[in-house]
């Protein structure tokens, strides 16, 4: 009996990797999925911090894809190792802080190590030539294969016919004729193939599945690095950039104001880490102060906070400030007017 050929598919939770995996599974190859968690992934649950998103299904798209396809999924925490990719990308950033090409190379390299350790034969990705401006161009396809060390063990079933033949095709593990020749930015061929496979309800996240492609998130990350003077970060930093309104009046501190209950609940977990405050005389949100604010800064922060509470139209709002040494201050402030908070303060 011939050996069962096995492949690992990089699963992002989106449609393309789902189609790529299914295309190869249909040819009798045993496929398992691998999903890398960088910390910047836009998952149902990071959205779920915000209450307004509660109506949407909170599923994890990668797990959902794996279940639809009937394959195992290995989720790998790469938060620590990913720092080097994000901080020093050899090929630079895309439109925002997304180091897509280095990221792809890194993930395919990790998948290569995984197939060696687990005795699998090749790697599948859902890349489509010309689909993305940075990492999925004609010129970058061979770079990913070469620099990841995967070389011809990397099969892109959705555009394989546009690329040089790979080992899985040469060895007859998969039939090249049954692979695809998708290219360009149109999503029509993918939709048609999804119809053919009977896939419905697949994820089509508007802003992609990574916070680093988001302009506003990227600005906050750059602000964090600049004000700290150091590009190191940890998972708490990454998470906190996802929640709240971030307002920076000066380099010493920024104030993070919860936009709704879900965010406030999440931020409550950081009350021991940051100076924090909320209105004591009116209903209003929780705020964290990140940095090293002085006394005047704390007063200014209280005025900003009061702007977002129900006392905003009044002259006098009481604010309770909890300092890191356990001391609690009660101060009274006049809320700032909307026009008194310059646009440039909003990160």
């Amino acid at each position: 009996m011939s050996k069962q050929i096995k492949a690992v598919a990089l699963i992002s939770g989106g449609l393309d990797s789902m189609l790529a995996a299914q295309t190869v599974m249909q040819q009798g190859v045993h496929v398992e999925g691998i999903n890398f968690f960088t910390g910047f992934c836009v998952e149902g649950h990071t959205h779920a911090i915000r209450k307004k998103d509660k109506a949407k299904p909170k599923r994890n798209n990668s797990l959902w894809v794996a279940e639809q396809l009937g394959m195992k999924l290995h989720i790998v925490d790469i938060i620590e190792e990913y720092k080097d990719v994000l901080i020093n990308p050899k090929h630079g950033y895309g439109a925002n802080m997304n180091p897509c090409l280095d990221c792809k190379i890194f993930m395919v390299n990790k998948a290569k190590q995984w197939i060696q350790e687990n005795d699998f034969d090749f790697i599948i990705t859902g890349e489509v030539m010309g689909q993305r401006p940075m990492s999925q161009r004609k010129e970058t396809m061979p770079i990913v294969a070469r620099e990841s060390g995967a070389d011809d063990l990397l099969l892109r079933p959705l555009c394989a016919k546009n690329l040089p033949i790979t080992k899985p095709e040469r060895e007859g593990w998969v039939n090249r004729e049954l692979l695809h020749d998708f290219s360009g930015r149109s999503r029509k061929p993918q939709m048609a193939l999804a119809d053919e496979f009977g896939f419905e309800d697949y994820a089509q996240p508007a802003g992609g599945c990574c916070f680093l492609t988001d302009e506003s998130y990227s600005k906050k990350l750059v602000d964090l690095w600049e004000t700290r003077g150091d590009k190191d970060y940890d998972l708490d930093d990454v998470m906190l950039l996802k929640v709240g309104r971030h307002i920076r009046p000066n380099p010493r501190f920024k104030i993070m104001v919860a936009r709704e209950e879900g965010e406030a609940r999440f931020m409550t977990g950081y009350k021991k880490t940051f100076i924090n405050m909320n209105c004591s005389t009116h209903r209003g949100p929780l705020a964290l102060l990140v940095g090293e604010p002085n006394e005047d800064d704390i007063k200014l922060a209280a005025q900003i906070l009061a702007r977002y509470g129900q006392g905003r139209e009044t002259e006098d709002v009481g604010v309770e400030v909890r300092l890191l040494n356990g001391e609690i201050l009660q101060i009274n402030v006049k809320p700032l007017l909307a026009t008194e908070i310059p646009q440039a303060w909003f990160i």
Partner: protein
Amino acid sequence: MNLHKLDARRLLCPLPVIRTQDKVKQLQTGDELEVTSTDPGVMQDIPTWCRINGHQILETQQQNNDYIIRLKVGE
């Protein structure tokens, strides 16, 4: 059968799933694992992960802010 516990509180999905996955790797078929998390997302994700990977959910419950899932390790 051994009962093991995993504290995944204050982690947001998919981290509780990753920690569960890594813990299950160290266990034997038939062992039980009780995962405690504060992210309600686990109530959906851990059962899905179990279905995909051949493990069995024995019980799920909510106690105040904790979501507790007991599972049995499959083959």
